């Protein structure tokens, strides 16, 4: 399960930020997880529960924000917000689709002290 690797990366990044900002604890952490990032939020939560133990994150509130796919047709400009990764325009059947959102895997913000 690669979510465990990702959980460890999140812990490592937060520790690095604590050092940079001369803080000791994370109060809250906001993550943005795109539905096409390759990461399942429920699996990440499970992995994080383990990874944060005995780290500066262990008492933090962790907010998982699911980012839906935002697909725009290059031919008719129709924008569709969906969880289904189908790169065909429902309006004109074009396969020329831009993925505007939904692939993110971000540490958005953190509160620390």
């Amino acid at each position, binding site marked *: *399960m*690669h979510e465990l*690797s*990702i959980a460890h*990366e*999140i812990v*490592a*990044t937060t520790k690095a*930020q604590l050092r940079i*900002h001369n*803080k000791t*604890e994370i*109060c*809250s952490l906001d*993550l943005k997880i795109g539905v*096409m*990032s*390759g*990461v399942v939020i429920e699996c990440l939560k499970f992995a994080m529960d383990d990874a944060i133990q005995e780290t500066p994150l262990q*008492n933090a509130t962790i907010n998982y924000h699911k980012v839906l796919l935002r697909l725009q047709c290059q031919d008719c400009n129709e924008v569709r917000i969906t969880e289904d*990764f*189908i*790169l*065909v325009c429902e309006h004109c059947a074009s*396969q*020329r*689709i831009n993925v505007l959102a939904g692939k993110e*895997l*971000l*540490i*958005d*913000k*953190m*509160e*620390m*002290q």
Partner: protein
Amino acid sequence: MCQDCGCDTANASFFESNPNPETIHLSESILKRNDDIAHHNWHWFDDNKILAMNIMSSPGSGKTSLLEYTLPLMNKEYECVALIGDQQTENDAQRIKATGCRAYQISTHSSCHLDASMVEKTLKDSINGSEDFLFIENVGNLVCPSAFDLGERLRIALISVTEGEDKPEKYPVLFHKADLVVITKTDLMPYLDWDKEKFLNSLRKVNPKVKTIFLSTKTEEGTQEWLDWLNKKHKEVVPCV
């Protein structure tokens, strides 16, 4: 109530005594560390004119068989090397070495995918920069490898005709990111009800324009198209050669 001193702060927020935490707006990729190493790998390959490819598929789709077939032929004209990722054993690297070609095993132990640092560490002991092709065979897995950039220039997804035609829709991230989709074991098609059009329709939904090659290392159907594709891609990396 606190069991040590009897106070009633046990239900209070852990951070109430420090009401002014600092907020950092980071907006940073969770995989930044991997991506930085991948970026370094990519530049090292580019500087040395090595065409690095990440080959991904489910277990048993034929990644190692394809490399067993490909490397001896490509080695007639190019210098090739393979990095093979598996959780345990060196079986697949040994298979490649048995063909007389260079291969190095990366044992990921508990990890279900390769990452950029694993490739970086192995490069130091396995590649000298004179190579033309680096074939990276990822751990057999249609989910996790797709999330980790290794620094490769090209991603190749394999699927065999013994797998369901709707695999691309079921595992869209890997197939969406592929630069080439190779459909293997086509020699088995007479014995299966595998629907080629159904598969292509499924693939087009997640990667409308990706090139596909149908091949069999047994009958050599499609293998010349595969070798021609490799040659063409190498010329794009080293245009003057």
